[in-house]
């Protein structure tokens, strides 16, 4: 629990609710089923839609036989490229127009006979029932003319193109002569690490309900970016964005898979337009695999050179990843290697190959999750080559400033994370030799790896109001995919204003609210908190001014910095001199006062974005901001069969100020669970002949089951990051980073087998 006092320019916060393990404000609603997800809105006249997916990766549709489907009882419309209303194609992607990045693919669905990936929606069936729609979609017969397609990553990787540096992304970086230093190093490792494609598996498949009212559109959508969804739909359907409302009160998990706008949302709105009724579509699990991108596969070379004393002399990290012909951005596979170790010579290079596949998209720590597997496995290999403890090797190479450009670390307490973790995990009891910790038929191993994830902060508009009854309402169009955002922001607001937690209501998940940040980059909590700090400061100032209008107010003669916000009002420090907010408002006769941060107007939002980008770039020049941590893993490997079971886990995290100890732990644990899946079992099987995903279901795509996951111990250091609002860095993604490497390193320690190819299935240990 935090006892820190986070300083800001304008106010001091005494943490009362901040840091506590508060139950979620929506816990009851979610456990009783009262929380509305995007398919839970009962609209009169609702119709249902389903999709038919292409079975080729590249080519043209020659003919579609829709007769059987159209004749099916209950089918209202069978929509193909031959009869679909025209939509505007997605715009060219540009960093100057961020919403141009919103669509997951550039395909103008059902407006073209062109097929650009295996699984592309080619027919949309709308019906009176889910069953009739699904049946209609199954009865469609499509004939194609196929063309050769780039679908086999193992083959196509040879065509990868080196990535250039842009304002937004680093493709390469060098310092000194890394290859020469590697060749000259007395101890070195140089290895290739590979990770497979991964698919999104949020418990709630992508789902939307859409209703048109003339040119006005309302969409209930499970999304991580309400504003992108709204503006993208407005652009595609050529209607004013102001007339599009997107409501996303609850999203059933997302992990990045609902950041972009994918086919399902666009086509639900299209279906509603065609049948002139509200339409709902929840993708099948197969539909998610076919139409929503996943994590790119990677091939990575990591080479490390070191002196016999363990000091790094060279660090090389080169990656090959894939993007889609129709979209998907390069993943930052090497980003962690740029910040992690003090090597005098470094060479970083990312390359990408374009594939005829559903484009890759962000998935929890995109780039960092795969990159840390290679880097942190290689560090373990180097420790073995040096005969050195892997923690000691890391501590020896802990940089004082950014290894590439010498930028300062905003805060970095990795040493402490390892020290705390090593003691708590019993690391000193580990005997270093591989296979040296056998227990009966089980080979026991312990491994570590570092976790690292950059901290982000985005633009967030908020309003905060105080009522005469002392009730506070926060309004901000942010997103709730299960993280507990409303709870965290209510805790923050309660402490900023000095009101009880249950006096605060947080409204989110609606495009009618002030523009919220997208839920990505682990940045939502910090982004909203930053604006709440300003808005609550303004609100207190306003209330103080109102108090001072009265000659009798005990607050006369006091300035806000001298006052404490507590007990539901403003008080002089250490005294009972002061007034409650209701008392102030009662005297003025006002029912409520409200303050806002950010403007919803077009000019206002452009200004906001410009101001924000300027701050972002300024910050980026000065600081390396990140959450970090030390991951400790213990495995047991069956000596007969190679079956791997993780028996213990500890993650010690430096994530700045923790807002809610309970939901933050859930985020970190969730990341570790996802990382364990990545380490041991998850793998999208893309048929190298057809580009078709061969395991589009939860029974064949192996995410971990409960029995695969041990008790996961999570600890925080709780040192505020002085450059971040309230000192918080974000917790959503750092948990997955380093996880797969910690598992691989523990398996090496248990068995003496170094597996560099994920997932580490038991056959690789036979």
């Amino acid at each position, binding site marked *: 629990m935090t006892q820190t006092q986070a300083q800001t320019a304008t106010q001091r916060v005494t943490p009362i609710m901040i840091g506590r393990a508060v139950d979620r404000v929506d816990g009851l609603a979610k456990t009783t089923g009262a929380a509305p997800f995007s398919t839970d809105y009962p609209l009169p006249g609702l119709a249902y839609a389903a999709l038919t997916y292409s079975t080729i990766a590249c080519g043209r549709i020659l003919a579609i036989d829709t007769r059987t489907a159209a004749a099916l009882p209950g089918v209202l419309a069978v929509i193909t490229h031959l009869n679909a209303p025209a939509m505007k194609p997605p715009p060219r992607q540009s960093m100057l127009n961020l919403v141009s990045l919103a669509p997951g693919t550039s395909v103008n669905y059902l407006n073209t006979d062109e097929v650009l990936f295996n699984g592309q929606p080619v027919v949309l069936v709308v019906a009176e029932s889910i069953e009739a729609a699904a049946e209609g979609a199954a009865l469609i017969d499509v004939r194609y003319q196929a063309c050769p397609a780039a679908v086999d990553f193992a083959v196509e990787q040879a065509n990868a193109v080196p990535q250039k540096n842009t304002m937004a992304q680093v493709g390469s970086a060098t310092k000194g002569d890394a290859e020469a230093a590697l060749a000259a190093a007395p101890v070195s490792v140089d290895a290739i690490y590979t990770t497979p494609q991964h698919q999104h598996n949020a418990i709630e498949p992508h789902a939307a309900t859409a209703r048109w009212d003339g040119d006005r559109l309302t969409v209930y959508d499970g999304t991580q970016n309400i504003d992108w969804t709204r503006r993208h739909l407005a652009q595609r359907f050529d209607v004013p964005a102001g007339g599009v409302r997107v409501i996303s009160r609850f999203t059933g998990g997302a992990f990045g898979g609902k950041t972009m706008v994918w086919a399902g949302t666009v086509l639900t709105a299209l279906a509603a337009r065609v049948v002139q009724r509200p339409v709902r579509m929840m993708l099948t699990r197969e539909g998610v695999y076919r139409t929503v991108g996943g994590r790119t596969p990677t091939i990575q070379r990591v080479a490390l050179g070191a002196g016999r004393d363990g000091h790094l002399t060279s660090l090389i990290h080169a990656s090959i990843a894939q993007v889609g012909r129709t979209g998907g951005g390069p993943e930052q596979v090497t980003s962690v290697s740029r910040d992690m170790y003090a090597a005098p010579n470094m060479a970083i290079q990312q390359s990408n190959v374009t594939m005829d596949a559903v484009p890759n998209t962000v998935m929890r720590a995109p780039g960092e999750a795969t990159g840390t597997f290679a880097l942190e496995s290689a560090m373990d290999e180097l420790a073995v080559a040096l005969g050195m403890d892997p923690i000691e090797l890391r501590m020896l190479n802990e940089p004082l400033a950014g290894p590439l450009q010498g930028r300062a670390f905003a805060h970095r307490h990795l040493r402490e994370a390892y020290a705390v973790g090593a003691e708590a995990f019993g690391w000193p009891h580990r005997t270093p030799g591989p296979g040296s910790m056998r227990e009966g038929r089980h080979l026991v191993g312990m491994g570590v790896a570092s976790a690292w994830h950059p901290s982000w902060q985005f633009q967030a508009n908020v309003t905060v109001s105080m009522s005469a009854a002392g009730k506070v309402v926060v309004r901000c169009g942010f997103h709730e995919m299960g993280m507990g955002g409303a709870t965290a922001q209510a805790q923050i607001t309660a402490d900023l204003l000095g009101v009880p937690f249950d006096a605060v209501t947080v409204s989110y998940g609606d495009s009618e609210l002030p523009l919220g940040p997208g839920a990505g980059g682990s940045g939502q909590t910090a982004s909203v908190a930053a604006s709440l700090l300003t808005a609550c400061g303004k609100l207190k100032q306003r209330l103080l001014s109102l108090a001072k209008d009265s000659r009798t107010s005990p607050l006369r003669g006091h300035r806000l910095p001298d006052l404490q916000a507590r007990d539901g009002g403003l008080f002089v420090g250490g005294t009972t001199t002061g007034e409650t907010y209701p008392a102030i408002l009662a005297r003025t006769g006002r029912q409520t006062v409200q303050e806002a941060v950010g403007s919803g107007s077009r000019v206002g939002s452009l200004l906001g974005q410009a101001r924000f980008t300027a701050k972002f770039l300024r910050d980026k020049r000065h600081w390396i901001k990140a959450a970090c941590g030390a991951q400790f893993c213990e495995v047991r490997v069956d000596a007969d069969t190679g079956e791997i079971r993780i028996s213990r886990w500890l993650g010690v995290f430096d994530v700045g100020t923790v807002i809610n100890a309970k939901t933050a732990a859930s985020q970190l644990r969730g990341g570790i669970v996802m990382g364990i899946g990545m380490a041991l079992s998850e793998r999208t099987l893309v048929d190298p002949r057809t580009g078709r995903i061969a395991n589009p279901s939860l*029974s064949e795509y192996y995410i971990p089951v409960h029995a695969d996951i041990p008790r996961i111990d999570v600890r925080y250091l709780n040192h505020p990051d002085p450059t971040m609002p309230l000192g918080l860095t974000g917790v959503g993604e750092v948990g997955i980073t380093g996880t797969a490497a910690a598992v691989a390193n523990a398996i090496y320690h248990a068995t003496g087998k170094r597996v560099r190819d994920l997932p580490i299935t038991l*056959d690789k240990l036979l």
Partner: protein
Amino acid sequence: MRQFSYVAAADAGSAVDLMTRTPGARYLAGGTNLVDLIREGVEQPVMLVDVTSLPLTGIEELTGGGLRIGALVRNSDLAASPLVRTRFPVVAQAVLAGASAQIRNMATTGGNLLQRTRCGYFYDLAAACNKREPGTGCAALGGGFNRMHAVLGASDSCIAVHPSDLAVALAALDAVVEVAGPDGARRITLADLYRSPADAPDRETVLQPADLITAVEIPGLPEAANSQYRKVRDRASYAFALVSVAAVLRVEDGQVACVRLALGGVAPRPWRAHLTERELLGRPATEDSFRAAAEAELAPATPREHNAFKPELARRTIVAALRRLTTQTGAS
């Protein structure tokens, strides 16, 4: 979902009659596999004949120590039965190694034996599959994914494996299925129930569409009290076997006096390891003879592109299971 009619059968006789008269109809019991297959469009029955209210839910003791298990005994009840757990632990363990608690609460004994392969290409209507659509080919061969597939007893027309765990245990125990059919009742040994794929992988058993499994009989085998089901898979639960072993062992004076062994995850059918059994009988119950006997069974294995590990994994798992049964009786 496709339109089909649904009839709840009142008794076995009328169920068989209805099925005989209705081409394209299917029996529905737990539905844990069939309903999935209908949803995926793999099965397209015109009628479902629901047999779940038939009185086939008992577990009876037979003279000689055997058990007669009604075809509608739920997997969860089968695994929980004290008779099964004490006389045939391998059966209870096999059932518990499969699926999830929710599925086991629905799935039946008879249905378990007739579940269909989990080959991904069998499920994907866009893929070639001789089992789903005879004559179209096998997408698991010629560059397809075949990590889960067969290394024993397959054919070039199909390399899919049979997914049942229960059937592997029953194969080791020489179980017999009782069947009600258009021509009356008959008994089929489990060994005879399954066909080899040869050139007709769509026909997985010798049963005709109207045949209804009414019970499974496990003959008495005192040695089966010392038995084990060992399932090796890609995650700790809710995954089909890469390799599984059902084993019964009795050791006398350090010699193998009785051994029964069957393998799962390696063949289109539950694979009775006769060669291992023959090799082991009368030999010393040692790691070396277990290994040699396992070698004998796997010698003819034909691995494919992604499952070259299976023969070795099967050998190791056989040895591990037999070792465990040896130490369990304290006879080694």
